[in-house]
């Protein structure tokens, strides 16, 4: 059907192009054939195909990725359980930072975009953002650095449309590491803006 449509369109263009010089040279030209005449001549005396057949063709699996049907899933009432589930399902996701930095990497922005979508759909929750640092700094400066990380995440969520009045921040600096280890893999986990859902 699609191919037929394309061929018909192409034909029209060719015919039009062929007619252009004629149109320019002769200001008044009678069409050589009347469209109605053609139609009556070519269309057989049968009813047109039903419109439903077009719909079927467009929905071919080849053309569009088939998404699983959306299912409503209930979220836990317990706020701690809710946070665990929300992080596990990727409804909200923490933003991770490079050493000594508080700017958002592409990955961190992606995480916050995901979180912003969910937060906008779920206005019944507020958000606490905890700023965290790895142990390779000093306690006092890291408290300030954690504050900046948490607020950088807050600002970005606000630009994505999350009402900033719903967001509170706190910095734990290096006081509450997620991974107690002393290597790069532990440190990388500990440099984050940690998103925590809280009730209103």
């Amino acid at each position: 059907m699609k191919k037929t449509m394309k061929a018909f369109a192409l034909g029209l263009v060719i015919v039009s192009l062929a007619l252009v010089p004629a149109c320019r040279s002769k200001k008044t030209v009678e069409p050589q054939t009347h469209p109605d005449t053609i139609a009556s001549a070519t269309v057989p005396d049968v009813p047109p195909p039903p419109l439903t057949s077009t719909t079927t063709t467009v929905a071919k699996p080849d053309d569009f990725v088939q998404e699983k049907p959306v299912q409503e899933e209930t979220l836990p009432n317990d706020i701690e359980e809710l946070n665990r589930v929300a992080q596990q399902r990727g409804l909200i996701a923490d933003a991770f930072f490079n050493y000594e930095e508080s700017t958002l990497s592409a990955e961190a922005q992606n995480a916050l975009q995901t979180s912003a979508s969910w937060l906008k759909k779920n206005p019944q929750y507020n958000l606490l953002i905890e700023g965290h640092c790895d142990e390779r700094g000093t306690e006092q400066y890291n408290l300030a650095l954690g504050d900046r990380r948490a607020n950088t995440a807050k600002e970005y969520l606000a630009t994505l449309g999350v009402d900033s009045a719903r967001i509170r921040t706190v910095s734990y600096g290096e006081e509450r590491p997620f991974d107690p280890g002393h290597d790069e893999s532990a440190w990388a986990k500990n440099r984050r803006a940690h998103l925590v859902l809280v009730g209103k």
Partner: protein
Amino acid sequence: MKNFFSLLLAITALPLLAQTQVTSTIGQQQAAQVVRIGIPFPDLAPGLDPQTINNAFFSPLTRDLATSGVFAIAPLPPGVAPTPELAKRVGALYLLRLQVITEGEDNVVRARLIDTTGTEALAKGYRGQVATLTKIAHMLANDLVALVAGNKSGIFLSQIAFASDRSGSWEIWLMDWDGGNQRQITRHNALSILPSWSPDNQRMVYTSFVRGTSDMYIINRVGGGRMRLYTGLGLNTSATFSPTGGDIAFVGSVNGNPDIYVIKDDGSNLRRLTTSSSIESTPEWSPNGRQISFTSGRSGSPQIYVMDAEGTNVRRISFEGEWNDDATWSPGGDEIAYTSRVSGRFQIRVANIVTGQSRIIAGEGSNEQPAWSPDGKWIAFQSNRTGRWQVSRMRADGHDIQQLTTAGENKDPDWSKKAE
């Protein structure tokens, strides 16, 4: 002082001495003449347990005197009467004769310092409940040092505030200068850190997360009153009293921009001292209150800066190390100790504020958060050299490192601001 005998009845509260000007002179104790002293074990009234008296009184007293830099303790032969002749025999200038008796609920300690001619240089009595025996030991040590060295401000009664997690949450604790008498001050059951003394030692300010945000609290030494200092800002960390006691410098944050602020201790008159878009942290007043040191990331890494107390005349003073923080002024105001990262490891650095010359003074592990003793001769700090954070103490030249805490993890030391 000769032939002078007085019986001072000390119960618990002690009169406050006027603040004494103390100058920090590294190595002075080595240069000073050391006085040899013999100290026989005290005569005890019937019923007193020698082991208890040793732990609570005799041992702290002799430790204080041995580390004073003023006295050297001469070993004594056992079972010999403490006479001037004994002092001569062991090459001591003095003998300290001690007696501990009980009077009702109290212990009374009588101390007599006699020289080799038998003349009394000091005769003094101290009375207190059994629990104050260690305090009496530190008082006596202060008096002896004052007598011999002419220094009125021995530091043996000074206190070190710190944060400890041994109770299950980080809380504010106190200990004597030698690590004795460790006791819990706050019971927030929440992260409580960074204690800082008021100049009269009667209050402390610290940061607690008990409300879910970080806030500053002021507590009183007597009466236990606690006040939350409302600032309307984020962070509220690194709080520190001005030398006059009326102001508190701290780190406040608006929209993720930490800066140095000052607020009065009643919560009024909030002032912003730095306006840079970079991270500012960790303010500390100079001893005369005219300057404030702080940490700033404005150059791309955390470095130490000094400004006038109004926020003007900012200049950088740390140029070595890729991460510097925790600056704190010596009591004499001529040196600043700070945490400095050298080859990936934090060390205590002491820099002369005028010449800019600095030296590294701590050893193994990471060593952070220096705090000067009130006489400028010692520095408390936290170290993870044992694998866990513990508070230690060393001489200001880096010698005689002694770990003061062992239970749980311990950090954020701040030494009381003046001797008592």
